[in-house]
């Protein structure tokens, strides 16, 4: 006689617990929060958190709150695989954002793809990422879309006849940037006087820069990350190398000016984002980020912020059924149709060409902005 009320109350609790949870949209976030790649992973997480908080404050998606299940993949590919598996099979998230490094996506992406769960990278720019499969998405604009425009703009402006190239040799990001630059230079028929390399973490570039100076280029093309780029430009000026720089995606960060406000004068950079882009979407993002985190956002944070909004736009069109597999599939089908005006500008997806007859994932389809550095700031290049 006493057991019945107990079972009833237990059932009630279970029902209530069930309904409380059913409203939350669990989304996995796997980024490098410690280790060498944390300098990208942490701003990315910040961008996602900022966007998620804003959306939740406005009532969430169709009344449901976004819950980010955040895991640290440490910038290591084995960890990325472990974390993906945990998010997919244990936490049972609807989709995953991340991982941070292209290398990690190559390792963990296949896991998500096989499990039919969307993996949405915001900082993976290597070639071949989306070849992994149709569940792989990214909004990080590929260098092959940005660099041709950067180079042709700079060439025209400075009347460049020949260039020297320097790039980071041991990082997939900067190396694939170099591969694109190389092709662009061949396509645009610009001879290269010399090609120099460095490794990530190097702080002394004088040997390479001295070599470059001796070949007298009209400009120096640099595929590197902002920290090294800042030092490269300062050391170049210190050696008396006056040629202007042309930078890849990695240049796009306020960090470029931390070492010197003047060394980068006249540098051309193409990118999907710059902090001075005056659109309201961007300015609101920059202000909100500054207020919440007390520091300047960078490209990584901006792309993460936009990714959250892109996913939100897709989720708004879906009616959650509670069947995990069906909901996950619905996301994969809804995402390609999304187009938004975000902090990085107008955005939509473009499916990559099929690989070996198998369908591929979705890349970013965005126009790059070309910026030139004047007075220690990125200024939109308008042709002057």
């Amino acid at each position, binding site marked *: 006689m006493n057991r019945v009320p107990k079972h009833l109350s237990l059932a009630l609790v279970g029902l209530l617990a069930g309904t409380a949870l059913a409203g939350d949209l669990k989304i996995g976030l796997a980024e490098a929060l410690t280790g060498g790649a944390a300098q990208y992973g942490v701003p990315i997480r910040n961008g996602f958190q900022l966007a998620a908080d804003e959306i939740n404050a406005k009532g969430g998606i169709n009344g449901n709150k976004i819950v980010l299940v955040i895991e640290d993949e440490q910038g290591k590919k084995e960890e990325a695989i472990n974390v993906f*598996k945990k998010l997919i099979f244990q936490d049972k998230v609807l989709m995953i954002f991340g991982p941070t490094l292209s290398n990690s996506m190559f390792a963990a992406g296949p896991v998500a793809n096989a499990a039919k769960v969307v993996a949405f990278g915001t900082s993976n720019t290597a070639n071949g990422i989306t070849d992994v499969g149709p569940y792989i998405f990214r909004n990080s604009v590929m260098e092959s879309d940005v660099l041709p425009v950067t180079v042709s703009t700079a060439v025209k402006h400075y009347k460049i006849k020949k260039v020297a190239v320097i790039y980071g040799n041991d*990082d997939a990001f900067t190396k694939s940037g170099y591969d694109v630059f190389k092709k662009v230079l061949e396509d645009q028929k610009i001879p290269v006087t010399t090609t120099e390399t460095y490794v990530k973490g190097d702080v002394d570039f004088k040997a390479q820069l001295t070599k470059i100076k001796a070949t007298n280029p009209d400009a120096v093309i640099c595929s590197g990350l902002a920290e090294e780029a800042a030092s490269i430009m300062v050391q170049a000026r210190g050696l008396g190398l006056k040629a202007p720089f042309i930078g890849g995606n990695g240049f796009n960060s306020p960090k470029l000016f931390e070492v010197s406000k003047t060394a980068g004068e006249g540098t051309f950079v193409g990118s999907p984002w710059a902090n001075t882009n005056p659109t309201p979407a961007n300015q609101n993002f920059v202000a909100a980020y500054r207020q919440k985190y007390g520091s300047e956002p960078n490209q990584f944070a901006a792309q993460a912020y936009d990714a959250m909004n892109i996913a939100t736009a897709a989720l708004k069109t879906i009616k959650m059924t509670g069947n995990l597999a069906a909901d996950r599939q619905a996301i994969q089908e809804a995402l390609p149709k999304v187009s938004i005006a975000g902090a990085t500008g107008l955005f939509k997806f473009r499916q990559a060409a099929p690989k070996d007859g198998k369908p591929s994932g979705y890349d970013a389809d965005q126009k790059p902005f070309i910026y030139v550095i004047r007075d220690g700031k990125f200024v939109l290049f308008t042709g002057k």
Partner: protein
Amino acid sequence: MGSLADFWATYSTLVFTVGIHALLALSLWLTLSCGLLSLANAAFMGIGAYTAALLTLHLHWPFPAVLAAGAVAPAVVALVIGAPTLRLSGVYLAMATLAFGEMTRILILNLDITGGPEGLNGIPLATAWWHIALILAGAGYALARLRRSRLGRAFEAIREDEVAARLMGIHVEGHKLAAFTLGAILAGLAGALNAHFTFFISPREYGFENAVDILTMTILGGTSSLIGPVLGASILALLPELMRFLHAYRLAVNGLILIVVVLFLPTGLWDSRRLRQMLSDRRSRRGGKP
């Protein structure tokens, strides 16, 4: 039953990683048993991994052949560089093997065929749990037999006192080369297996930090028996998972554990002598036979 399948789906990679680490720790144990502190095993792992991956991707060899190649390639390299390098001892040998390791990594980084810094991706999944289990068990068995064989005793003699061993007629150079090469084979196998369940390899995984990791595992577990390295490898592979809640301080705890073990448990966690001592103490305390 569903939760077991879920558990396996979530943690299978982790279990595989533990197995691979155990294999690597055993490879280092083998060289240590001959008194050689070789930090080259991470590089040998890399050579095995790249050889195997390239054969799978370009020539589509069957998996067993690929594994065999992954074991043979580093062995060949070991034989070549072993002769001059093994004349060194102690810390100088460690540094020489470290330099070799870095040169290997730089070579892989700069060759086009290895994909350079972008590494090789799209390696098909070929490793099953029983591959790792079989090879690990096989290695364990072989090493256990080795310890009690003439070869193993020669290794021990060389480790204890090289000059005396030579005077006893043991061909020191040959034995050292054997230990070095056998260690390379195990490390190469570990690399080949690893490449075929992580889909993607890059030069970054076979450098100084990884060599240090392997050393840490082996020392942590203790070198007096084969169980030590396997235990150390398991703990260091599982620790990041177990301590996920510590977030950023996880690495610090790793370092702390290393310091604590070195200070207070110098023979490692699993020391057969200490365990036997503890057991016999307990027996005598209970009043039984000493």
